């Protein structure tokens, strides 16, 4: 599967391309599961922006990953233990697609039924995102803005050369 290939390939350019394919495949999965808004966003953001940013990073840092010199046993053990615990936990979970699942009670039917009269917008995801849960969306917008501030602080200044004699200006950015 794509994910395992991502783990093993050491040419980072191929890794980034495969990550884009992984995003696109999951967007297709979302569509099959009726999550059209999410599929749209995942395709645009995951396969688009993430890939572009990673390629930009690769242009600056280089493409090859060093070969691991010894077999990592401890991470494998941690991963297997966590996976086994999660599988054990999943035995209690409700079956896939059942309309009587607890997740579909309480709030969701209310949104689906009332959204037509209260808001008058057919796309329930938009009405929930922008109106019923509008406060969260404001927080999310702030998070994106904060990330822009962080990236600009890190990347938009002149490059300085870090030598042992101290800092000096580079040829300019």
């Amino acid at each position, binding site marked *: 599967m794509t994910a395992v290939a991502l783990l093993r390939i050491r040419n980072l350019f191929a890794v980034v391309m495969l990550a884009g394919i992984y995003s696109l495949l999951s967007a297709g999965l979302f569509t099959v599961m009726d999550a059209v808004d999410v599929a749209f966003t995942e395709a645009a953001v995951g396969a688009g922006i993430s890939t572009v940013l990673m390629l930009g990073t690769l242009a600056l840092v280089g493409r090859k990953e060093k070969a691991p010199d010894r077999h990592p046993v401890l991470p494998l053990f*941690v991963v297997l233990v966590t996976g086994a615990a999660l599988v054990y936990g999943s035995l209690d979970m409700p079956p*896939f697609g059942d*309309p009587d699942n607890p*997740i579909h009670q309480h709030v969701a039917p209310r949104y689906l039924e009332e959204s037509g009269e209260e808001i008058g917008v057919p796309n329930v995801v938009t009405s*929930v995102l922008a109106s019923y849960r509008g406060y969260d969306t404001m927080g999310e917008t702030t998070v994106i803005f904060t990330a822009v501030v962080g990236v600009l602080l890190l990347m938009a200044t002149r490059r300085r050369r870090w030598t042992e004699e101290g800092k000096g200006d580079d040829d300019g950015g």
Partner: protein
Amino acid sequence: MRVLGLFNYWIFIFLMMVGFYTLISRGNLVKKIVGLNIFQTSVFILYISMGKVRGGTAPILMEGDAVYSNPLPHVLILTAIVVGVATTALGLSLVVRIKEAYGTIEEDEIQAEDLRL
């Protein structure tokens, strides 16, 4: 028979473990961030698969009676995807700066450099 209804959780667990393993076992920082992305996307798959209703359709209101899939996980995941890309962008810019400061993005070489200074 009931176990067969759980396969979506197992797919999610497998993907998440692959992402987790990539995150903790590989030393290259860009590979770590890719592993983080796999991890995040697998969690999205979990939530969306939990929101699906058998025989349902996309939650866009239509005329007449229809069975809709649950829109609430869609909203959460929409937010999560965008926050995820913000995190990835910030992480990648940190990787670029680390490369400029240390000359490498392999984790063990960075630690060796730190111990040396």
